[in-house]
């Protein structure tokens, strides 16, 4: 399962990528693989506030809704409208076309509590091994 360089990762399996003063957020390849086929994505409104660790979206897969939690705090400045018609992009392209929201971060120091690619890879391996 893919873990990309240049991104930061949360223990709840979301990723964040800084592009200038905006942070792009989505779920990881590990998460989409474990969730199964995504059939519906419910995203917040532009302008909504998100907080680190707080739920901002819902994904439906295999008869379950799963919370998606924001790795950073801030204001939602864009949402991926394509996910309405093509929720499967979360499965096929979790780090690119399947991005979920863009956030204007309010607290740069939050990045320090997130994992880099190597730590996240190890985290996933340990989590799967424990089950």
């Amino acid at each position: 399962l893919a873990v990309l360089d240049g991104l930061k990762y949360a223990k709840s399996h979301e990723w964040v990528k800084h592009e200038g003063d905006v942070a792009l957020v989505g779920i990881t390849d590990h998460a989409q693989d474990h969730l199964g086929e995504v059939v519906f994505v419910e995203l917040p409104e532009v302008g909504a506030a998100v907080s680190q660790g707080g739920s901002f979206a819902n994904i439906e897969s295999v008869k379950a809704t799963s919370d998606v939690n924001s790795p950073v705090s801030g204001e939602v400045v864009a949402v991926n409208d394509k996910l309405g018609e093509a929720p499967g992009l979360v499965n096929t392209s979790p780090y690119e076309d399947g991005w979920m929201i863009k956030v204007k971060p309010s607290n740069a120091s939050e990045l320090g509590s997130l994992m880099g690619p190597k730590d996240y890879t190890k985290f996933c391996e340990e989590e799967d091994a424990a089950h």
Partner: protein
Amino acid sequence: MGLLRQSEKLGLPLMNLVRFKGMPILDQLNLEEKLLRTTSDNWCIVNDGANAPTVVMGVSGKPAELLELESVIGDNVPVIKRFTGGGTVIVDEGTIFVTLICNKDAVPKVQPYPRSIMSWSGKLYDEVFQGIGDFQLRENDYVFGNRKFGGNAQSITKDRWIHHTSFLWDYEDRNMTYLKLPSRAPEYRSARDHTEFVCRMREYLQRSAFIDKTIKALDNYFMVQPATPADVNSCQVAKFAHSTRLLSKQELEDACSSTKPGTIAQSASI
């Protein structure tokens, strides 16, 4: 407090068991969502029959695609959109509801993902139905052979999950006519209509026996502790914004209108 220490000694997590009879399904779903999101306890809720026939859709359900709306509206059947995923069911006093709300680490080896949770719940109900019918978890449905008798759905938060099931102990054939054949269906359904696809649990075991066997199976994983409705009320927060909701008659009528030819031309001429 004494029971908690006992359960810690045994190494099994505590599970509060709450039993209702005839609770309206909207109230049940609101209670479940509140307990999932605002408490940190494990819960089993058993509701022995809803109070009235009600359609319950999953979070992404579209009434126009899933329901025979003219009949639903004409017969004043309530339609609810619930907070969990999954398909559409019609429930009534013949439906037995079993809901499990757990912390993510409550059951060893179970990860907070849908297939992992259902793999465990399938084993739990294997124990309940041991020697009864040809029970299995088949493409995420609870079946006897190739006939579904239990529909389940889930919601997963960062640290907790809920798995709830509506078991068809009995049902009215007429009520099934409110539901269309869904476009998204398991392969084993083979395009069968509802009366050919589902079956009644009453043909296999007594209502009370099912509930007793379920609680007994839970004993293998939890220290099951009876809780009263007062216990439930005492641990709830005052304000909680439910996402389960009753659809209005207007919403259903608008959905019905959207399926009729000529609707776009009419609205364009206004």
